[in-house]
């Protein structure tokens, strides 16, 4: 399955596809959630929500 299919599935509310995308982008989110050299759980959660809204809003 390539990325386009995955994204389209996630946009169609496929839970598995969403999880896969989340695990795919997890390293990026983890990296961005580091504040002042400390991993910030709250920021990470917010960024996960951001990812989900991005999936919803992104126009293929």
């Amino acid at each position, binding site marked *: 399955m*390539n*990325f*386009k*299919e*995955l*994204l389209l599935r996630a946009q169609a509310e496929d839970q598995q596809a969403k999880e896969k995308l989340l695990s*795919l*982008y997890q*390293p*990026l*989110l983890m990296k*961005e959630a580091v504040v002042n050299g400390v991993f910030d759980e709250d*920021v990470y959660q*917010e*960024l996960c929500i*951001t*990812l989900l*809204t*991005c999936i919803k809003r*992104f126009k*293929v």
Partner: protein
Amino acid sequence: MKFWNSGKGESNILQNQFTRYLKTSIQRKKVDLFRARSKVYDHECFDDSWQDIPGLITVDVYFNSPAQFDTIGLEQILRQIEKRDRYIFYAHVLDERTFTELAAELGLTYKGVTAAYYRVIHKIRDALRGDEYEF
């Protein structure tokens, strides 16, 4: 699934676009988050140390040196004002004494005291050219 793609082919291009889109919105979200956080921190007092914050005028400051305000002009204006009026101003604003009390003390009528007080206020306001302060 590759973490780094060559950027060739529809799917790879799409992935790069999505990643860019995601990165932008992550940055914006973070800016929003930190702004909201700093707003909360600005309004929080965690312990009694707020008394030590420089520039914050507490009651002690008023009583120990009533002529010291952070507005430089205000001190000079107050010096020019008549002694009795200045006393009324200080007593009402800083000591929160009522006009009735002051009137009895100074041998004036209630109206006389209020007139003196508002005269001072008007003088200060005119001198500072600011009318956003309501005393």
